């Protein structure tokens, strides 16, 4: 399989996906949960009768929560998001809901996040991703010090990593619109898991390149990369299939509380496998052949690269 030769197609697809992700991140943007915007979220369960979303919302607005978000989770369970509740507010909500069905609803889960914590969350999350990327880059530079231009490997791995994170975020914007998926603290855990997975996957491919470069230094770099990709592609697919099997099992049999998180992981694993084969290694080739020195590679240049 000549994957390296088709690198422009893959790089192009990725560029479009990343661009689209960035666009949707600005509008409509992620649906931020209370970890980011402060407030209280409650999961209520009605055991006797199911009042319906509209009724629940009306009752809560009546109780003074005019910006309430109500989501029916099925089985008489409702996810409710309000402003940060003060003293006595929770009782008022409980009372209002009790009047709907005559029986007090059960509070399954209640989370309150104060304004000052929420304000820092986005910044902390970005800082964590940046710091993790820098350390990973430094390690790759060290681990690949034996091959020429080890710096390129580090940059390519991190570009692939950011590519994965951005696309996972983009997919999550879509999920937010489609199934009201909300970004919460565990979502950040999901993103960092994606980073870990993405880097791991990229390194397996790079490791093979490192080995093949050392074994046959005279071989053209693009052939070496293509050979390495072909040698590792079965393993990459096998690993991502097994990991996805576990994630899918958790999605199907696990509770609703982890659903959003598992969707991030699923996206991340799929994109991470794709990027390690079709992006990270291709960046190395593009860099080697000087294509990256130009912002937009022109046709004549490509022709020479192709014939080489």
């Amino acid at each position: 399989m000549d994957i390296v030769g088709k690198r422009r197609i893959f790089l192009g697809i990725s560029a479009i996906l990343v661009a689209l992700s960035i666009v949707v991140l600005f509008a409509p943007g992620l649906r931020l949960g209370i970890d980011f915007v402060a407030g209280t979220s409650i999961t209520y369960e009605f055991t006797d009768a199911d009042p319906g979303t509209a009724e629940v919302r009306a009752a809560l607005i009546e109780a003074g929560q005019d910006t309430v978000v109500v989501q029916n989770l099925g089985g008489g369970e409702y996810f409710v998001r309000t402003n940060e509740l003060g003293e006595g507010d929770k009782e008022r909500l409980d009372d209002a809901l009790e009047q709907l069905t005559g029986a007090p609803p059960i509070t399954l889960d209640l989370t309150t996040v104060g304004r000052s914590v929420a304000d820092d969350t986005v910044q902390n999350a970005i800082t964590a991703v940046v710091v993790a990327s820098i350390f990973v880059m430094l390690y790759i530079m060290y681990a690949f010090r034996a091959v020429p231009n080890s710096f390129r490997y580090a940059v390519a791995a991190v570009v692939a990593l950011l590519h994965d994170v951005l696309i996972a975020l983009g997919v999550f914007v879509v999920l937010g619109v489609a199934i009201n998926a909300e970004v919460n603290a565990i979502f950040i855990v999901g993103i960092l898991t994606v980073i870990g997975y993405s880097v791991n996957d990229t390194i397996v491919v790079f490791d093979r390149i490192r080995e093949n470069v050392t074994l046959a230094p005279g071989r053209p770099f693009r052939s070496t990369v293509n050979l390495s990709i072909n040698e590792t592609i079965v393993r990459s697919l096998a690993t991502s299939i097994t990991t996805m099997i576990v994630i899918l099992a958790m999605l199907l049999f696990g509770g609703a509380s982890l659903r959003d998180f598992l969707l991030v992981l699923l996206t991340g694993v799929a994109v991470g496998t794709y990027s390690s084969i079709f992006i990270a290694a291709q960046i190395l080739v593009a860099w080697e052949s000087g294509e990256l020195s130009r912002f937009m590679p022109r046709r004549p240049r490509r022709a020479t690269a192709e014939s080489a």
Partner: protein
Amino acid sequence: MSRQFRGLIFISVLVALSAAILFIPRLDIGGFARGNEDSVFGLSLGLDLQGGTHLVYRVETEDGEPPTAEDMEGVRRIIESRVNQFGVSEPTVQLLGTPPDRILVQMPGLRGASITAMFSGNTVSQDGFEQFFVEELGREDAAVTQDVRENQLVLIAQLDSLEPPDLDENGNVVTPGDAERYRQAAKEHFPVTMGILFAPEPVEDPDATPTPEPDGTATPEPGPTATPDPEEPEPTATPEPETTVPSIEDVRQVFANIGRDEVEIEELDEGFYQVTLFNLEEAGFDEEGNPIPSEVDRIREGLEEVGDLAGLEPFGRIVQWTPGGGVEEAKALIGSTAQLEFRERVCAPVSPPSPDVEWPPDGLTQDQWAAERCNNPEYYTEQATDIDPDNLEDAFASVNESGQPIVTIVFDNEGADAFFRVTDRISRTGDLLAIYLDGQELVAPRVDPDIGGIAGGRAIISGQDFTPERARTISIQLRSGSLPVSLELLQERSVDALLGETSLRRSLVAGGVGLALLLLFVVSYYKVPGVVAATSLIVYTLMLLAVFKLIPVTLTLAGAAAVILSLGLAVDANILIAERTKEELRSGRGLLAAINHGFSRAWPSIRDGNISTIIVAFVLFWFGDRFGTSIMQGFALTLVVGVLLSMFTAFFVSRVLLRLVAASPIGRRSGLFVPVEDVAAPESAVGSQA
């Protein structure tokens, strides 16, 4: 070969050990205690898997300066002592941030409401109490924990909710709430056993005994009693005085007189009876508002009439039954600023207050009295002083000239005046200055009468039982008690126990199904190396859980996610090795050589990949506590443990097993070592393009 077998034995020992660790719910080896009876494999579960409450507070000083490490430590101690009152199984209070400025309080199992109960004589066990709620009251949501405070067993039943009593406009109870109904039920359910002991009385005139002889058959045998003390000759000349104690019938009559016709009485020894009662009545008021003495008092009165009552001990009486508000109450208590109080303790007098009073009271000896008069709340009284805790400027621990630990306290000018007046007074009376934090006694020193009032606002507290740790604790508590910090609730998370249970069950099922599918895939695709990989993954899972229990790592949903990721990495390592081995086989090597090369050539990529993952985990752990939640750190810790263990299983367990299999008859059929789907040789693919 023997090397492989040694490896196999080592693996077997590890598996057996891990299994033992997991299947014995509670381990306790020489003080190293792990696990608990109630959870799966005795693993410690996070709030999201067992229910409970998680609170994060920011500590703010009044002057806006960031709190110092010592401030934080003081606040942590105060909160810890407050949280311990709630009777949840393993509460944690932990400082967050570098430098710390926030406090995380976790109370697993804390629910909407609770009932705290104490039975005199500790007659009711934790299990018995829980059974009472579940079986007698039908409260299947009840979970009972226990705590021991000063030899008294405190039982705390956690419940989802308690119906409050219905009150009319005047605040009178129309219908009692759950707590009261349950108390009545407990009185009916748990018996009170009274130990009744009579002192033998000399028989003066058999006809004058107030007790009627029952049929003359059950005459109590006069036992070998009351030999005169040789050093104190009896004033009366009567040789061998006859003694008597009230008979079982006398006792029965006493109970009949107060309306207890059928009571279970057992004679344990001469003059020593045991009576079992249900529904003991407490003191109260009749309809006209006249006090009715409690049933115990009426029984005591009756018993005193028939004989010389030496002891009456009711065991199993409900001495405390307090409904609690659960989460809301916990928030209110934790968030309140610590209250430091200086009180003047007026001890009971050494000599009798009036000549005709028996002194010391209650039959205490002089020595006992000396110890009790200032320490037993039954005897001393306390009054407020005008020492304002806000005037306490500092408190620190040090040692005096002779090396004894002491606590120095420093008041400002205003406080110094008040302190002088109080110490001057109590130095003359011999009373104590009792210092309380949140209503609990911290220390109660007396003032040396030779010194008198302490002027200047500086004082030293010393004590024979002071250890350096205790002095330090007292000083920290004194300081933080007067510290003008306030706590702002930043984050709250309460998970219903039932939801936690559901999440746990579903996660276990999901994990089990996922693992089974994964093993199926690996075995069907990679054949023999797949079976080896699957075996080593099972070993991995067992060891991972065992390590979690030993460290211990608290399992949360986020932790479960980390387990998935590390499982993925563990599979990846095995797949890499299997792929490499396959390539080596194809290039014409013998099976054993191919396996050896497969491992050594897979190692660099596994190493680098896993180290990168560990780097990400470290960054996550480092940043984790900035998010006001502990899930990140839990995830990171779980991930690091998982990754390290996955490298071990891949490179030790898999290798030993694969070599053993290769050396066995299976090893002769190398086709079993090549995957099902044989992709075209990559070399030729590249070659065709070049």
